[in-house]
C-alpha cells in the first residue's frame, strides 16, 4: 500500500467525499486559503467552486448554526474551525443546538454534521491559539468526538464522521500533518467508537490520544529497553468510547497510564481513570498515571512551551512512576 502524509490523507478524503455525494460541502473561515489550514484544502476550490467550498466571514456562531440548519435541511456539511479555540464562540450552536436536537425533538430529525476542529498549538502562539478542548465536547451528550492519530485513521474517521447521522467533532492536530502512513486510495471508514491496540504488552496499559500516540510509541520503545513491556491503546474515538478494549487491557496488565493533550482537571485522563476504577478496580495493582497539560493556559515563549507540552519523556516518566508503586 502507498504511504502518504496525514495532510494528504485529509485532502484526498475531502476531494473524494465532496465528489462522491452532492449533499457534502465544506464551509468555514479560510477553507479557500489552503495555507491557512495546513494545506488540507489544496485544489478543492478549483475543482468544486465557491458553492461547495464556502469561505465565510469570521462569524463562528452563525456559521456553525448555518451548517446545522443546512444539515437539518438534508445536506451533510463539513464545517471547519481552523483553531479549536474559536469554537468557544460557537458553543451555543454546538452544545445547545446540534447536541440536543435529536433528543429534544423526540428523535424526529438528527444533525448529520461533521465539525472539523483543528488543534494548532505550539509555535509560540499563546493561550488563545493553542487549546485542545476535546474533554469539553466529550462531556456533552449528543455529540460524538474523534481524534485520529494516523493518516489511515484521518481518512477512515473523516469518512465515518460524514456518514454518521449525528454531529461529530473531528479533531486533528497540526503536529500530525507531516506524519506518514499507509492509506488505501479508495474510500473506507474506521467505525466511530472503535479503538485500536497499537502495541501489545503485558506490564502496563498506556492509553494515548491524537498526537500523543506518536510520543507514546517513542516512550514505549524507550521503556522496552528498560525491560518494561507497554500495551499501547489508541481509543481513536473519545465518544463513544471503546470501553471494552480499554478494560480488557487494564484487566490484563493491572496498570494504567493515560496521555492526553488536554488539561488535567476533569480531562480525558480523569474520565478514563474513573472508568478503570468503576469497572476494573480489583485488577488495579497501582495508582493510575495521568500525562496531560498542566492546569495553566498555554504560554508563548519557547522555554515556557517546552515545560508546558508533554512528550515521550514525560509519558515514560509517568509509566516508571506507577511501576514503582
Amino acid at each position, binding site marked *: 500500500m502507498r504511504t502518504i502524509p496525514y495532510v494528504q490523507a485529509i485532502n484526498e478524503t475531502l476531494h473524494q467525499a465532496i465528489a462522491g455525494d452532492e449533499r457534502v460541502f465544506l464551509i468555514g473561515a479560510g477553507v479557500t486559503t489552503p495555507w491557512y489550514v495546513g494545506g488540507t484544502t489544496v485544489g478543492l476550490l478549483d475543482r468544486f467552486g465557491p458553492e461547495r467550498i464556502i469561505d465565510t*466571514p469570521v462569524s463562528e456562531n452563525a456559521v456553525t*448554526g448555518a451548517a*446545522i*440548519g443546512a444539515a437539518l435541511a438534508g445536506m451533510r456539511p463539513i464545517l471547519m474551525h481552523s483553531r479549536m479555540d474559536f469554537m468557544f464562540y460557537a458553543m451555543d450552536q454546538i452544545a*445547545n443546538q446540534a447536541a440536543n436536537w435529536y433528543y429534544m425533538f423526540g428523535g424526529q430529525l*438528527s444533525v448529520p454534521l461533521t465539525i472539523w476542529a483543528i488543534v494548532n498549538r505550539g509555535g509560540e502562539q499563546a493561550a488563545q491559539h493553542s487549546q485542545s478542548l476535546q474533554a469539553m465536547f466529550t462531556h456533552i451528550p449528543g455529540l460524538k468526538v474523534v481524534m485520529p492519530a494516523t493518516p489511515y485513521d484521518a481518512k477512515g474517521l473523516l469518512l465515518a464522521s460524514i*456518514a454518521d447521522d449525528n454531529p461529530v467533532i473531528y479533531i486533528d492536530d497540526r503536529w500530525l500533518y507531516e506524519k506518514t502512513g499507509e492509506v488505501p486510495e479508495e474510500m473506507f471508514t474506521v467505525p466511530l467508537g472503535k479503538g485500536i491496540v497499537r502495541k501489545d504488552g503485558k506490564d502496563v496499559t498506556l492509553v494515548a490520544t491524537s498526537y500523543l500516540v506518536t510520543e507514546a510509541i517513542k516512550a514505549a520503545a524507550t521503556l522496552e529497553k528498560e525491560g518494561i513491556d507497554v500495551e499501547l491503546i489508541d481509543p481513536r474515538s473519545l465518544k463513544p468510547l471503546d470501553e471494552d478494549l480499554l478494560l480488557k487491557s487494564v484487566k490484563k496488565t493491572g496498570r494504567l497510564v493515560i496521555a492526553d493533550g488536554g488539561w488535567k482537571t476533569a480531562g480525558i485522563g480523569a474520565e478514563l481513570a474513573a472508568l478503570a476504577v468503576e469497572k476494573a478496580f480489583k485488577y488495579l495493582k497501582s495508582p493510575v498515571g495521568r500525562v496531560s497539560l498542566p492546569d495553566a493556559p498555554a504560554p508563548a515563549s519557547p522555554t515556557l512551551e517546552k515545560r508546558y507540552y508533554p512528550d515521550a519523556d514525560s509519558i515514560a516518566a509517568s509509566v516508571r512512576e506507577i511501576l514503582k508503586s
Partner: protein
Amino acid sequence: MAIDNAELIRMYRTMLTIRRFEERASKEFRGGSVPGLVHSYIGQEAIAVGVCFNLRKDDRMVSNHRGHGHLISKGADIRRMMAEIYGKRTGYCKGKGGSMHIADFSIGILGANGIVAAGLPIATGAALAAHLEGGDRIAAVFFGDGACQEGEFQESLNLASIWKLPIIFVCENNQYGVNTHYQYAIAGGSIPRRARAYNLPVRTVDGNDVVAVYEAAREVVARTRTHVGPYFLEFKTYRWYPHFESDAIPDLRPREEIAAWKKKDPIKRLAKRLLKEGVATARELEAINEEVLGRIDEAVKYAVESPLPRPEDALEDVYSTQGIS
C-alpha cells in the same frame, strides 16, 4: 390582489384556534395539569397566520419559545401539540421537548428554540441548503425584539445578505423582552435600521392586522422565491399575557398599556371586517368558535388520555442510529 373569502375564513379559524389553544393551555397550566413552562402567543395571532399562510409545506419555518401560534399556522396537529405540552408519549417529541420545543419536521417546521436568536443561524442554514439545491423553496424565521440584541442576529443577517439567501426574517416586535422595553434595549431604538445596515430591505407592518400581514408576506415571499436575497419584516404587536404562564415573574408592564393593546385584538378586528364585508354572519363566526372549542376539548382529551413516557425512555434518542458508521 384581494384575499378570497374562503382564505379569510380559514385565517379567522386558525387565529381563533391559536387563541383557544393558548387559553386552554394557560388554564390547564395554572390548574396544575401541565408541567414546565408555557409562553403564551395570545395577542400576536395575526403574525403567525398572515406569514405562514403564504408558506408552502416544503418551505422551512423556524420557530421559538413562544411558538404554538407558528406551529398551528404551519399546519401542526393540535392533539399532538397538546400531548407534548402535557408531557405525554404521544406528543410530537414524546415528552422530551415540552411546550418550548414542539416541531413537526414533516411539514417544514425546523424546530422551536429555547435560546433567544438561536433559530436565526439555523434558518440561515436552511436557506443556504435551499440555495444550493436550486429551486424556489424559502426559509422563514420568527423571533422577537429581544433577539435583535444577540450576536446571532447580527451574524445571521450579515451572512444571509452577503450570500443573497432566500430567507425572510420575521421580527415580532411585541415591545418587551420579559419586562424590558425595546426602547431601553436597542441603541437608536430602531430594529429596521439594524436590518438596513446589513443591506436588507425592510418593511414595518401593523402586526395586529392579519390582512396587512398577509399581504406584506405574500409579496415578500414571492420576491424571496426568486433568489434576490433576504428580506426583513418587522411586525408591531403586543403579548397580552406575562412572559410565561406563572406569577413567578411579575408582569411589570403598565396596566393601561396592556388594556389599550387588548382593544386592538387582532381576532376581533378580523371578525369586524368579515361581518362588515359580508364574508360571514355573526352566527357563522359563532359556529366556527364552537367548532374550534370542540377541537380544543378533543385535543385536551387526547392529551389527558395518552400514556406518559416510560421512565427508561429518558435515555433513548440521544443519538440517531440511522446511518451510523
